[in-house]
């Protein structure tokens, strides 16, 4: 149940330089990702054999909304034990470093990179294993909830959201470009095709503690986690104020 990264069928070929510029992760959602995120992504790439891969998400729920009929609270609790053990390892490592903020990276054996970055403050640590936030997609009447603590990167989060708002039979639209090169383009969905037709007319945004709406992907993951209140998949046309078009990840 731990680490959706481990189920991602990716080769960990390290093909890019540290100051990799823009990486568009377009899973029907356009995420302009910052350097914090891309430096981990740079160690992955699509190979041609994966051009038609359907990314499996190791989230505790199936892709059908609300099925099986278990409350999110219960599903989440099954995860919390596994997660809290991992969290404790990190916390003890962080304590040893005697720093307010520690960056921890852990490579697991199968080559995928766990890029969780833990921020720890001076006062009593609060271990909170579940972090359900609401997600609303424009044009879809009923919102969902996603457990952010089940994710350790923007990638897996975007994947999860893609799954949530797609029909279960839909093949994912996925296009990852590194160094400006496209590695794989997949046939789109038959439903909601106007939202997920690959032309990325949707943008993932979040509301932070101060009530401002920000583009997802600008800050390090741990900072995002600690300030996010809820998510919204916004139509591109409404996202003008976020100035995302002009962003580059320098």
């Amino acid at each position, binding site marked *: *149940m731990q680490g959706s990264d481990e189920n991602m069928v990716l080769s960990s070929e390290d093909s890019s330089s540290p100051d990799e510029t823009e990486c568009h992760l377009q899973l029907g959602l356009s995420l302009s990702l910052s350097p914090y995120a891309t430096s981990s992504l740079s160690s992955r790439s699509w190979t041609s054999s994966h051009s038609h891969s359907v990314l499996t998400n190791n989230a*505790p*729920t*199936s892709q*059908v*909304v*609300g*099925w*099986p*009929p*278990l*409350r*999110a*609270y*219960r*599903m989440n*609790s*099954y995860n*919390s*034990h596994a997660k*809290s053990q991992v969290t*404790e390892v990190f916390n003890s490592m962080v304590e040893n470093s005697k720093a307010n903020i520690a960056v921890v990276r852990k490579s697991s054996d199968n080559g995928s990179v766990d890029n969780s970055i833990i921020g720890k403050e001076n006062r009593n640590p*609060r*271990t*909170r*294993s*579940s972090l*359900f936030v*609401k997600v609303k997609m424009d*044009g*879809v*009447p*009923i*919102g*969902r*909830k996603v457990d952010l603590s089940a994710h350790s990167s923007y990638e897996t989060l975007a994947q999860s959201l893609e799954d949530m708002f797609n029909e279960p039979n839909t093949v994912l639209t996925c296009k990852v470009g590194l160094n400006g090169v496209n590695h794989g383009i997949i046939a789109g969905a038959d439903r909601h095709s106007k939202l997920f037709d690959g032309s990325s007319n949707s943008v993932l945004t979040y509301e932070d*503690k101060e009530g401002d709406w920000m583009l997802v992907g600008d800050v390090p993951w741990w900072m995002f986690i600690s300030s996010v209140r809820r998510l919204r998949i916004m139509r591109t046309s409404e996202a003008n104020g976020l100035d995302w078009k002009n962003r580059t990840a320098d």
Partner: protein
Amino acid sequence: MRDNHPPPPTSDDDHRSSSLPDLARGGQITDSSSSKTRPGPGSSSSSLPQPGSGSELQAQFPDQVLENVLENVLHFLSSRRDRNAASLVCRSWCRAEALTRSELFIGNCYAVSPRRATARFSRVRSVTVKGKPRFADFDLMPDDWGAHFAPWATALAQAYPWLEKIHLKRMSVTDEDLAVVADSFSGFRELVLVCCEGFGTRGLAAVTSKCRLLRVLEVVESLVEPVSEDEVDWVSCFPETQTHLESLVFDCVEYPVNFEALEGLVARSPGLKKLRLNRFVSMPQLYRLMLRAPQLTHLGTGSFSDSEALEQEPDYASAFAACRSLVCLSGFREIWANYLPAILPVCANLTSLNLSYADVNADQLRSVICHCRKLQILWALDSIGDEGLQAVATTCHDLRELRVFPVDAREESEGPVSEVGFEAISKGCRKLESILFFCQRMTNAAVVAMSKNCPDLLVFRLCIIGRYRPDAVTQEPMDEGFGAIVMNCRKLTRLAVSGLLTDRAFEYIGRYGKLVRTLSVAFNGDTDLALKYVLEGCPNMQKLEIRDCPFGDAALRSGLHHYYNMRFLWMSNCKLTRQACQDVARALPHLVVEVINKEDEAAVDDIELLYMYRSLDGPRDDAPQVVTILH
């Protein structure tokens, strides 16, 4: 179609009569005997009758005597079903009953307005209000759908300053609402919040600090949300003196509590019988609390683990042994299985054991369950496997309720429990009344076996996780199994079906499920006939929740004769059109017909969600924009 009015607002599931005059209007009739001195709430003394206006004196006097006698008798009636029946005899019985009803049950917060309810019943001491339908738990409703407690809080504060108890289920409750409760009822004793959301620790603190007579505070499966960055230490807000606490349940609160304050609280609460801790309370902390409260009868053990193994571990088993009255154990939220033997001293007396957050295997379970001869309620994870179920069947011959939850809820999984364990349970636990069973495979034969071995079943909820999955051995639909359940379990009132089912299964339900009040259907059935069978065949149907089934307009129309007798009908992602829903709304003016479209942009004819319910006060005014109320 019969032109009948909905029954009075407080009728519950059991209320069987359907064609009754609308005596809810009785609540608006001014009480002609209001000039008499009335006893205060909770008082059982009768008052001397006082004369009314002169010309009515002769006619009134015998009625007044009768009413006084009636009131005194009615004080003994506690069942709301009986009270509803009494209230329908005649107007004066209705009045007398209204004046003596002290427990108000509102099964659907939108079926009646707070104003109407408080106007009819003037002496209420305990209120239960239920809001959202169950399928809202599974993300099938918008978050801001409603069920706000605020208007009820205001009305109750005005009408019943002596109010003692509030029970809420699936309501949206804010910190402000809890503050109103804390400020308005000086004698407040009991707050129970089940599956509620919208409040945080600040609201809890308002209650704990101001309700000095508080006996029961239970927060169950509720989402306690952060309002701001700062959580409030609500446990420290209890009064410094000895408390009246009998029950403190906060196992779902996802924040650490101040342990020192908690320990002090337990130490000065000699009446504490029920204590359910959240997962932030460690094993050593649990030990300390148990030493302070050996009188506990119900214990939720918190995490049941430790952040690190101590040099010298306390003798946990001795703490359990000291709790001689313990009958109900739960918690085990992050269990270290090697601590499990600590509960052995209490197993012989346990009647209820909830291990549904504990990933234990068959051997670990067997080691404790073999001592639990008196067990009546068991909740567990399917990690115990068919072997674990067999161990339960071997020992727990008195078992009444079993719930088995899946560790892995994905549809593609191979599950550790199957028809084998299921049938074993049916053979060993003949007194079973309620079962909720999640599995990846099942057979008709096993379900038929249970229908014959456990004829006392009241609640049968089988969830085969893989949708449309047939009998694992014969590949047949699961019709015969569910058919046997409704045929052989004559007392069945609640049923949830799953797996591959044709219309035939529903034909069985309509033909034999005469007492069924709650039915849950998901990804089943072939045609409209299935729903027709149920609507035409089940006169006691109260709550019908259907999702992702091929049922359309004809099926919907076939229930017009019955919808006023139901608490609600839920149909999501079926084949309904807006027009048909509109027709129903027009045909049944006392029904509130709420729809949500599939795409919220245009008024498309495809309905995503139909949720309809009877109401005495018409459509609500707090519906979010995505909800359309048809008329």
